[in-house]
C-alpha cells in the first residue's frame, strides 16, 4: 500500500469562462489569460479614478490662493492619486501582461499555480476597493503615499484613512507576492523543454528577475505596515518619538521597499520595450546578454540606494557618500539599456506603428526622467531640490514617461492577441499625440517650478512671479492628457464591438505567443514548435538564415 501518489498534472479541466456558461465563472476562473485580462481591466478602472484625482489636483493648482478644494480633501486626493497610480494601476497592468504572456512566451499551457494566480488577483482587487472604501468611512488616507510617521500616527491623523491604507497595502502586497511566486516557479518549471533559461524572451526574463525583487521588497513594507498598525490600533510606540519610538525607522523600512518598488515597475516595462523595439525595427535586440545582465545588476543595486530618498534627513557625509555612489552606479545599467534599444533601431527597418511611437516617446522621456534621477544622487543638488516640483516632475517622467508609455506600447502591441481585434491605428495616433504632448506640457515645466521654489504637496501657493503662468500651462497639459485618454477609451469601445478579425501574427513577430490563434484557445498550445534560438518564429519563417542555435 502506498500512502502517496504523484499529483496528476492537469487531469481535470480548470474552471474558465471558456469551459462553460455562467457569470460566476468570471469569479471561479483560474485561466491565466482571463486573469491577465481582469488585471488589465482593474488597472484601467483605477487609471480612470486616479486620473480624475489628478485632474482635480491640476484644477486646484491652476490659480494661486485657490479655494476650490479644502486642504483636508486635497491631502486625501493627492495621497490616493499616488497610491492608486502605483499600486492599483502600474503594478496590476504589468502583472496583468505578465500573467497573460509569460506562459505563452515560454510554451506553457498554464501558470505553475493557477489557483494562487486567481487568489493574487482577487486579493489585489480587495485591497484596492478597501482603500477606496475609506472615503465613505470617515476619510481617505491623507499622509502621502509614503505615509511618514509621526504624521500618520493617531495623534496627527486620527481619521481611519491611514488604517485603510495599511490594510489595503498589506492585501495588495500579498497579491503581488503571490504573482511573483507564480512568475518565478512558472519560469523555472514550465518552460518548454527546448527553452533554456538564457533563451527566454526578455519580457519573461525581466518579469522573472522582478519576481525576486517583489519577494524581497514587499515583506519589508509589510513589516513596517504591521508595526504602524500595532501603533495605531494597540497604542504601541514604535514610531512615536515622544515616547521612545523612532521617526526615522519607518522611512528606512519604507524606502528599502520603496526604491526597489520603482524598479519593480520599471523592469517589466523595460521588458515590454525590449519586445516591441526589435519587432518594429525588424532586428533582434541589440545585446541580449547586456540587457539581461544589466537587469540583474539593477535588481541587486536597487537594495543599496534607498537612503537617497532621505538625504535631507541629516545623516553624516560618510553615510550619504556611500548612497550617493550606489545611486549613481544604478544609473549605468539603466543607461546601458537605453543604448541597447537605440542600437536595435540602428540599421533596422523601422515601422512607426502606434506601439513603436510610444517606444520612441519612452526613449526620449524616460531619458529625461533617468537623468533628472541622477541629479538626486548628487547629494548637494538633492539638498536643494528634493521634495519640490522638480522631484514631482522627475517621478512622473519615470512613472508616466517610463512605465505608462511602456504599458500603452504593450497594450497596442498585444491587444490583437488578447482580444482578436486590432485597435484603430488612426485613433491610436490621436491618443499618442494628445497624451505625449500633454504629458510633456504638464511636467517639463514643473522642473522649473521646483527650481524656483515650489514645494510638493501644497494645496495652494502664493501669487509669486511666474508661478501662476507655469501652473496654468501645467494644468492645460493635463487637459490634453485627459483628452488622449478619452480617445483611448473610445478606441477600446469601438474596437471591442467589432467582430474578431485579427490574424494570428499581425506584426510578423518572433516570440511564441504569436504562434497561437488570436485570442488563444483555453489550452494555449496544441503542439509547441521546436525551439532552437531566442526567436523561434524567425527560424520558422526564415529557414534559410536561422539565428544561432542555443540548445
Amino acid at each position: 500500500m502506498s500512502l502517496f501518489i504523484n499529483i496528476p498534472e492537469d487531469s481535470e479541466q480548470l474552471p474558465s469562462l471558456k469551459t462553460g456558461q455562467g457569470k460566476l465563472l468570471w469569479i471561479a476562473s483560474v485561466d491565466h489569460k482571463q486573469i491577465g485580462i481582469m488585471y488589465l481591466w482593474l488597472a484601467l478602472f483605477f487609471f480612470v479614478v486616479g486620473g480624475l484625482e489628478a485632474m482635480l489636483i491640476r484644477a486646484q493648482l491652476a490659480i494661486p490662493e485657490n479655494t476650490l478644494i479644502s486642504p483636508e480633501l486635497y491631502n486625501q486626493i493627492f495621497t490616493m492619486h499616488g497610491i492608486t497610480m502605483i499600486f492599483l494601476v502600474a503594478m496590476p497592468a504589468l502583472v496583468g501582461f505578465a500573467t497573460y504572456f509569460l506562459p505563452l512566451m515560454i510554451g506553457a499551457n498554464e501558470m505553475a499555480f493557477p489557483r494562487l494566480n486567481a487568489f493574487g488577483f482577487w486579493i489585489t482587487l480587495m485591497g484596492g476597493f478597501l482603500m477606496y472604501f475609506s472615503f465613505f468611512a470617515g476619510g481617505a488616507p491623507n499622509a502621502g503615499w509614503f505615509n511618514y510617521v509621526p504624521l500618520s500616527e493617531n495623534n496627527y491623523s486620527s481619521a481611519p484613512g491611514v488604517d485603510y491604507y495599511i490594510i489595503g497595502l498589506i492585501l495588495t502586497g500579498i497579491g503581488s507576492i503571490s504573482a511573483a511566486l507564480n512568475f518565478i516557479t512558472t519560469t523555472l518549471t514550465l518552460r518548454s523543454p527546448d527553452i533554456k533559461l538564457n533563451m527566454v524572451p526578455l519580457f519573461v526574463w525581466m518579469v522573472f528577475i522582478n519576481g525576486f525583487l517583489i519577494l524581497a521588497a514587499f515583506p519589508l513594507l509589510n513589516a513596517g505596515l504591521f508595526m504602524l498598525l500595532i501603533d495605531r490600533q494597540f497604542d504601541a510606540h514604535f514610531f512615536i518619538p515622544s515616547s521612545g519610538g523612532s521617526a526615522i525607522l519607518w522611512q528606512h523600512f519604507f524606502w528599502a521597499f520603496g526604491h526597489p518598488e520603482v524598479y519593480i515597475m520599471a523592469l517589466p516595462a523595460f521588458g515590454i520595450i525590449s519586445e516591441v523595439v526589435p519587432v518594429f525595427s525588424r532586428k533582434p535586440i541589440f545585446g541580449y546578454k547586456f540587457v539581461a545582465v544589466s537587469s540583474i545588476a539593477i535588481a541587486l543595486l536597487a537594495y543599496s540606494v534607498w537612503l537617497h530618498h532621505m538625504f535631507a534627513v541629516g545623516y553624516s557625509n560618510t553615510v550619504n557618500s556611500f548612497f550617493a555612489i550606489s545611486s549613481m552606479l544604478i544609473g549605468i545599467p539603466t543607461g546601458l539599456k537605453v543604448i541597447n534599444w537605440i542600437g536595435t533601431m540602428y540599421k533596422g527597418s523601422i515601422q512607426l506603428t502606434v506601439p513603436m511611437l510610444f517606444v520612441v516617446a519612452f526613449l526620449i522621456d524616460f531619458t529625461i526622467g533617468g537623468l533628472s534621477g541622477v541629479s538626486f544622487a548628487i547629494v548637494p543638488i538633492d539638498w536643494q531640490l528634493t521634495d519640490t516640483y522638480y522631484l514631482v516632475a522627475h517621478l512622473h517622467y519615470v512613472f508616466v514617461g517610463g512605465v505608462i508609455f511602456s504599458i500603452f506600447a504593450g497594450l497596442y502591441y498585444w491587444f490583437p492577441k488578447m482580444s482578436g481585434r486590432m485597435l484603430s491605428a488612426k485613433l491610436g495616433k490621436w491618443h499618442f499625440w494628445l497624451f505625449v504632448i500633454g504629458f510633456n506640457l504638464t511636467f517639463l515645466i514643473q522642473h522649473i517650478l521646483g527650481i524656483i521654489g515650489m514645494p510638493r504637496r501644497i494645496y495652494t501657493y502664493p501669487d509669486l512671479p511666474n508661478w501662476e503662468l507655469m501652473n496654468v500651462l501645467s494644468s492645460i497639459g493635463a487637459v490634453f492628457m485627459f483628452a488622449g485618454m478619452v480617445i483611448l477609451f473610445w478606441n477600446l469601445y469601438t474596437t471591442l464591438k467589432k467582430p474578431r478579425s485579427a490574424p494570428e501574427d499581425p506584426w510578423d513577430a518572433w516570440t511564441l505567443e504569436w504562434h497561437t490563434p488570436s485570442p488563444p484557445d483555453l489550452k494555449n498550445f496544441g503542439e509547441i514548435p521546436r525551439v532552437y534560438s531566442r526567436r523561434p518564429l524567425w527560424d520558422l519563417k526564415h529557414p534559410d538564415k536561422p539565428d544561432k542555435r542555443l540548445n
Partner: protein
Amino acid sequence: MFQTTNVELIDKLFIYFLVVAGIIFLLVVFFVFYYLFKYRRKQTAEEPEQIHGNEKLEYSLTAVAILITGIFTYLTIDTMRKVQDIPDNPEPFVQIIGHQWWWEAQYPETGVITANEIHIPVGKKVLVQLNSDDVIHSWWVAQLGRKMDMIPGITNYVWLYADKPGEYLGTCSEFCGAQHAGMRIRVIADEERAFNSWSQQQLEPVAQLDDPLFKKGEKLFEEKTCTNCHAINGTPFTMKVGPNLTHFASRKHFLGDLKVNNEENLRAWLHDPQNVKPGAKMPNFIFSDQEVDALVEYINNLK
C-alpha cells in the same frame, strides 16, 4: 573676506550636472531621430541584416559611464563636505523649532524668542539648530542654504548665509499635514546694527498702555484662555503651544507668513481662524465684535 557661498557651490554643481546631462540627452535625441529618419521602412523592404550586438561598444560605453560617475562622485563628496561642515560642538546662533504650522525661533546668545519672521545678520555664516515639536518638517530657504529636515527627537544643523540685506522667502518642504502649504518662511537679513537694535527691541518688556480698550483686551486675553497656548514675556503665561506674542506687532506677517499683519487680517483671524487658515490649531472662540476690538487693540500694541 571673499568666498564662495554654499548656495553658489551647489549651483555650480548643478550647472556641471546640467551640461553633462544635456549632452547625454541631446545624443539620445539625435540618435533616436536620426535612426528613425534614416532607417524608416521602405515600401518593398526585405528584412535588414540581423545584427545581434556589439560587445566592444557596450563595454567602452560602460567605461565612459563609470568615468563620468567617478568625476561626479568626487564633485559630490567635495561639495558635500564644504556645504555641511558642522563643528563637533556646535554652538547655534539660532534654534528654529517647527510646529504644525508655524516656526519658533530662539536666539541662545541674547535670549530673544520670536516666531515665523526670523532675523539674521548679513554677511555672516550663522549656524542654525533645527528641531521639531510634532511631526517632520523641513527647513528650506533656497537662497540662504541647503534644505534640512526637522525631525522630532533628532537635532540637525545647517549654515545660513545672506550676502545682502533683504527678505528671503522659503517654505516647509516635508509634508506635515493640513496646512503644509501655510507654513512659509520669511528670513529677514539685517545689517549688523539693525539686527542688534531688533534684538534689543525684542528683549524689552511687554508693552503697557493705560488705554481702557487695551486693558480690556489684556484681561480678555487671559480670561478667554488665550494664555493656555500663547506666552507673553514678563507674565506668568509661558505656554509654547502657539507663537510667543510678546512683540507680535513688530512682525510684518503672521500665520506662518500667510498673511500681512494688519488690523483687517487680524480681525478676520480672531473671528474665524478656520476660515483664514483651514486646519489651523487655533480654535474659534466665537468672540463678539467688541471683544475682537479689544483683543486687536491689545495685540496690535505689543510692539
